């Protein structure tokens, strides 16, 4: 094979790369070495890399090349280099959960979704960094991580977002073709928006949690962070499915079927102008307005709506507190908790131990009402929701994330709009996709589509249609 200029390939979609591999334009070994070199060079510069797996990856790539030589094809992920958030166990490799108390932790098994990706020939090239313990105690600063703050590929003085900070940065910087992240409340959507990539949070229970660090049993979800919505579809098809090892498994599979996507003319999108015009930071409003106009031009029916009225943030915080305190009880009661980086997070976990059962149960009872409200919402009102993924660009690294260092905020708009959709969607187990939709002073922003449980094909179709009319997802940062 001729010498390949891989600089043109680092930001390609997985379908483009897979097609090139099948045409033998380059080998899986050459591709893996190129991506591993890039991940090892730039991963540490962006605090995105927890642990390189070059050696194992090249061995796997040789197997893939042997398969391709005899046309033993395993699907569109065959030969594709990917990374996983370092809360997914990989046999005999460090799995640190981003936290100093677990820096030497090694499991003797692979997480089930890692096994699934291996079976289809995808090539795991590295464990990617994350916020310590996925931020469950509530963290104040971006450096709440064993590997330091995730740095944004578009501006190193900015955060890559969390808690899937490594996956967001790695895909954004073209260090791997796709990554697996996780979301309890915002941790796929946020880094995807901040790093200018496409992230999909699946329906709760669609993707097995076996082998992933648990932060909150009833809120945790694993999902893909990719370059395109279509790529998310291919990855989700592989990683989804029933798993008896996961008590939260919904027992359902997902098949990516773009050929059956409903026409936009048959769908109603619910949105709230107040989200784009008032909740969004003033600097972002022109870009969000443009993005909204693109979606409106694509044939959907539109309906103005308002999110049901519940204390979504308070509920997710209480549920995460109670469940994480139980999961990490031994850590919190030991002195090892004080080894963690973020003081606010340490305090949050310690306080979580005092969560009264009756408060947790009240939150879980109100959650039943939330679930019913969104069920009624989608079956009586709209097919999709559309909302800014985040209302600001990525934070500066030195900014407190709790808003305490910010300038005084204007009064809150009277209408709720869809503000609170991140905790709300997670409480109700709803899937969402964030797609890049513009830039503000060189920093990416994203919009999210949200839909009812198990309708991921509808989300992916909406994201794909948006990406067919825009090129924000094709922009690439200049790394330093």
């Amino acid at each position: 094979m001729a010498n390949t200029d891989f600089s043109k390939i680092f930001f390609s979609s997985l379908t483009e790369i897979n097609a090139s591999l099948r045409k033998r334009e380059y080998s899986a070994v050459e591709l893996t070495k190129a991506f591993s070199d890039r991940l090892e060079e730039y991963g540490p510069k962006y605090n995105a890399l927890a642990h390189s797996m070059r050696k194992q990856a090249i061995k796997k790539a040789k197997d893939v090349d042997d398969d391709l030589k005899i046309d033993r094809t395993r699907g569109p992920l065959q030969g594709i280099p990917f990374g996983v958030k370092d809360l997914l166990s990989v046999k005999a490799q460090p799995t640190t959960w981003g936290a100093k108390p677990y820096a030497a932790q090694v499991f003797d098994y692979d997480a089930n979704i890692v096994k699934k990706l291996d079976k289809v020939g995808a090539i795991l090239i590295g464990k990617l960094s994350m916020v310590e313990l996925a931020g469950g105690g509530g963290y104040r600063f971006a450096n709440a991580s064993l590997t330091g703050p995730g740095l944004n590929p578009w501006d190193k003085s900015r955060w890559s977002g969390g808690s899937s900070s490594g996956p967001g940065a790695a895909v954004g910087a073209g260090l791997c073709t796709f990554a697996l992240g996780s979301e309890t409340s915002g941790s796929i959507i946020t880094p995807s928006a901040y790093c200018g990539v496409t992230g999909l949070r699946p329906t709760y229970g669609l993707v097995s949690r076996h082998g992933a660090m648990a932060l909150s049993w009833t809120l945790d979800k694993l999902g893909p962070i990719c370059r395109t919505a279509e790529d998310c579809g291919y990855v989700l098809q592989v990683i989804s499915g029933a798993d008896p090892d996961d008590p939260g498994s919904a027992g359902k599979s997902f098949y990516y079927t773009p050929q059956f996507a409903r026409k936009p003319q048959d769908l109603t999108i619910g949105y709230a102008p107040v989200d784009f015009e008032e909740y969004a930071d003033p600097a972002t409003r022109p870009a969000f307005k443009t993005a909204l106009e693109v979606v409106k031009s694509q044939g959907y029916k539109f309906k103005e709506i308002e999110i049901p009225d519940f204390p979504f943030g308070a509920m997710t915080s209480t549920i995460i507190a109670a469940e994480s305190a139980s999961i990490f009880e031994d850590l919190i009661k030991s002195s090892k908790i004080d080894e963690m980086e973020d003081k606010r997070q340490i305090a949050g976990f310690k306080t979580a131990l005092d969560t009264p059962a009756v408060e947790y149960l009240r939150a879980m009872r109100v959650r039943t009402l939330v679930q019913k409200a969104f069920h009624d919402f989608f079956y009586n009102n709209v097919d999709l929701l559309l909302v800014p993924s985040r209302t600001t660009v990525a934070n500066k690294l030195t900014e407190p994330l709790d808003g305490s260092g910010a300038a005084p905020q204007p009064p809150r708009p009277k209408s709720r709009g869809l503000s609170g959709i991140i905790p709300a969607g997670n409480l109700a187990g709803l899937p969402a996709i964030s797609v890049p939709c513009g830039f503000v002073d060189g920093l990416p922003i994203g919009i999210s589509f949200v839909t009812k449980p198990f309708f991921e094909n509808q989300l992916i179709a909406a994201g794909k249609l948006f990406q067919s009319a825009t090129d924000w997802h094709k922009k690439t940062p200049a790394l330093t």
Partner: protein
Amino acid sequence: MVTRRKLALLATVGVAAKVALAQAPPAPARAEGDADLETARQQARNNFQAIARVKLPRNVEPVTTFKA
């Protein structure tokens, strides 16, 4: 008016309280003067109060085995 019935009830409640205290796990040690801990505790209290304001019919059960 204090009746024998009321006195008996008070005695029962008093015993029950003592038993409950004896059975309750010891409270975790708390660091004094820790601003982050106090912030976290206050935030937790705020959360509980916000959730308590939701009108919750008695027959609504918790989503303890959550399936979407």
